[in-house]
C-alpha cells in the first residue's frame, strides 16, 4: 500500500495571511444550497431504489386504480382516465413530499451532518438544498404519471400547455407542503416517527378526496369533508387545467393554501433547524 499522505501535503497558508469574514453572503448561500441540491441528485443516481416512490409507484398506482375502478366508476377505462390521472398525480407527488422530512431527519442524524456544521458554509444550505433537489423528484413523478396515462390512452383536451401547467401546479403545491414535513423532520426524534406521523395525516387527506371517485355518491359528512379538503381543490384545479376548463377558484384556493403553508411552516422550520444546525 502507498505510504499514507506521502510527502504530497502542501504547506498551509499562515493564519495572518488569510482573509476571514464572519458572515455568509447571499451569493454564497445560493451557491452552497445548489451544491447541497447537487448532492441530493448524486444520491438519487447512487440509490435509485430509494426513489421508487416517484418512479415505479406512479406507474403502479395509475395502472392499478384505473383498471380497478375504471369500469365501475366511469363505465370504461378511457372515460375514467381524465378523473384518475390528476387524482393519482396529486396523491403521489404530495406523498413523495413526506420523504423530504424523513431524509432530512436521516441526514441530520448522520455523521456527515456534523461535517457540514463544521464548514464555513451557509447554515441553511443542507435544508434549502434538500428542498431544491426534491422539486426534481416531484417533476419526475409528475412526468411519469402523465406518460403512463398517455400510454393508457389519456388524451387531455388542454394539450401540452394544459398538462405542463397542471404539472407545474402540482410541483409547486407539493413543494409548499413539503415544508410541513421538513418541519416534522427537524423537530422529530427519529426518521421513522416522521414517516409514521406524516402518513397518518396524509392517508385520510389524499384518499378522502375527489381523487378516485365523484364525491356526489358519498354520505353527507364524508362529502362535506372531501369538498373542503384542500387536496380536492388541487385535484380539481389540475383536472381543469388538463381538460382546458376554467380552473379559477380551485386554482386560486390551492395556491393560496400553499402560500399560507409556506408562510407558517417556513419560518418555524428554519428557526427550529437553525437552533440545531
Amino acid at each position, binding site marked *: *500500500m*502507498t*505510504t*499514507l*499522505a*506521502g*510527502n*504530497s*501535503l*502542501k*504547506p*498551509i*497558508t*499562515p*493564519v*495572518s495571511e*488569510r482573509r*476571514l*469574514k*464572519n*458572515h*455568509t453572503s447571499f451569493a*454564497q448561500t445560493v*451557491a*452552497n444550497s445548489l*451544491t*447541497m441540491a*447537487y*448532492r441530493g441528485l*448524486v*444520491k438519487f443516481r*447512487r*440509490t435509485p431504489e430509494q426513489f421508487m416512490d416517484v418512479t415505479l409507484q406512479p406507474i403502479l398506482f395509475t395502472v392499478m386504480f384505473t383498471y380497478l375502478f375504471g369500469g365501475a366508476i366511469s363505465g370504461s377505462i378511457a372515460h375514467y382516465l381524465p378523473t384518475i390521472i390528476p387524482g393519482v398525480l396529486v396523491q403521489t407527488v404530495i406523498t413523495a413530499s413526506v420523504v423530504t422530512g424523513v431524509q432530512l431527519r436521516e441526514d441530520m442524524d*448522520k*455523521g*456527515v*451532518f*456534523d*461535517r*457540514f*456544521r*463544521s*464548514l*464555513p*458554509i451557509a447554515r441553511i*444550505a443542507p435544508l434549502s438544498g434538500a428542498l431544491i433537489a426534491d422539486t426534481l423528484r416531484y417533476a419526475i413523478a409528475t412526468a411519469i404519471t402523465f406518460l403512463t396515462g398517455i400510454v393508457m390512452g389519456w388524451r387531455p383536451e388542454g394539450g401540452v400547455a394544459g398538462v405542463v401547467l397542471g404539472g407545474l401546479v402540482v410541483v409547486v403545491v407539493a413543494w409548499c407542503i413539503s415544508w410541513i414535513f421538513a418541519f416534522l423532520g427537524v423537530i422529530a426524534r427519529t426518521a421513522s416517527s416522521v414517516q409514521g406521523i406524516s402518513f397518518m395525516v396524509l392517508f385520510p387527506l389524499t384518499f378522502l378526496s375527489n381523487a378516485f371517485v365523484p364525491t356526489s355518491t358519498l354520505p353527507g359528512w364524508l362529502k362535506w369533508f372531501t369538498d373542503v379538503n384542500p387536496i380536492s381543490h388541487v385535484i380539481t384545479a389540475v383536472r381543469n387545467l388538463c381538460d382546458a376548463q376554467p380552473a379559477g377558484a380551485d386554482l386560486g384556493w390551492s395556491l393560496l393554501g400553499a402560500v399560507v403553508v409556506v408562510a407558517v411552516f417556513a419560518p418555524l422550520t428554519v428557526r427550529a433547524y437553525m437552533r440545531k444546525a
Partner: protein
Amino acid sequence: MTSTEYAVEARGLVKVFGQNRAVDGVDLTVKAGTVYGVLGPNGAGKTTTISMLATLLRPDGGEGRIFGHDVVREAQIVRQLIGVTGQYASVDEKLSANENLYIFGRLLGLSSKQAKAKGAELLEAFGLTDAATRPLAKFSGGMRRRLDLAASLIAQPPLIFLDEPTTGLDPRTRGQMWDTIRQLVATGSTVLLTTQYLDEADQLADRIAVIDAGKVVAEGTGDELKASIGTSSLILRLADTNETGEALRLIEQVFGVQGTPSPEAARITVPMSDADRVTDLLLAFRSAGIRLAELSVQKPTLDEVFLTITGHGVTEAEETTEEVLA
C-alpha cells in the same frame, strides 16, 4: 484581539447535559504549530470539549478562542480555520470517495475544476486512488478514517481536530496515521487530538492534558506526566523457579529496589527507574547461572495513570502495552 501564537485558548469551558456536567471547567492552551493531546477514558468529556471548540456545540460556560477568534461570536471565522475529523466518520456513506471530496470542495468555495483536482490530490496522498469511485459501504475502517481525514484537509486548515483518530485501527494503520499527523505538523498545521492511549499521546503530542469526568486533572509534556506517574516495570520469568530467591537478591543488588514475585513465583515484577541497569542485571544473572524464560517491559498503563492522578482507576478502555524483548 487576534493572536496567531495560540491556536486554542479555552478558559473554564462547561457543558451540561441534564444533570451531567460532561465538561466541567476545562482550560486548554495550545501553541500554534504543535500537537496537543487530550488523554482520557471513555466518557471523560473529550468529544464534548472538541465539539465546543469546533463550533458544533454551544458552551454553557467559559469561553474558547481559535487563533484569537471566539468560538461563539465568530463561529463562521473559526470554521474557516479548522478541520474536524470526528470520532465517527463524517462522510456520506451513500456517495463514493470522489463524490464526497468534490462536494466538500465545492462547499468550501472551490470551482468545479479545483474541487476535482483537490479531491484527486488528497485521494492520492492517502492511498485511496484505487478506491475513489467505490461506494463507501465497501471501505474498511482504516480507509474510512483516511477519507475522513482527507476531507478535513481540503481547505488546508491551520488547526485540525482529531477525535480518537486511531481507536479501532490495527497497529499498522495506526502507525500510518501517526506518520500522517507528523506530516500535518510539518506543513505548518496545529493538531489537537484526543486519545485513550497514553502511549499514543506520548508518541505524538508536545503537550498532554489528562481529563477525567470533565476536568483537566494533569497537564504537561509526556515526560513530565510520566515522571509524575511512575516508571515502567521489568517483568522476568525464570526458567527454574527454584532460583527465585537468588534472582530477587541480585535484583535488589543491581536496582536497589525489591522485586515482587507473583504468587506461584513464575514472574517477578521490578520497578525500572533506569533502563540502562537492565544490562547489569542480565550480566549478573548470567554469571550466577540463572536462566530466563522470558523478559518484557511493561509501561505504565492509562489505568495506572488514572489511579495515580485521580485516586480511582479507569473503568473502561484499558490498555496494556507490553514490549517483549526476549
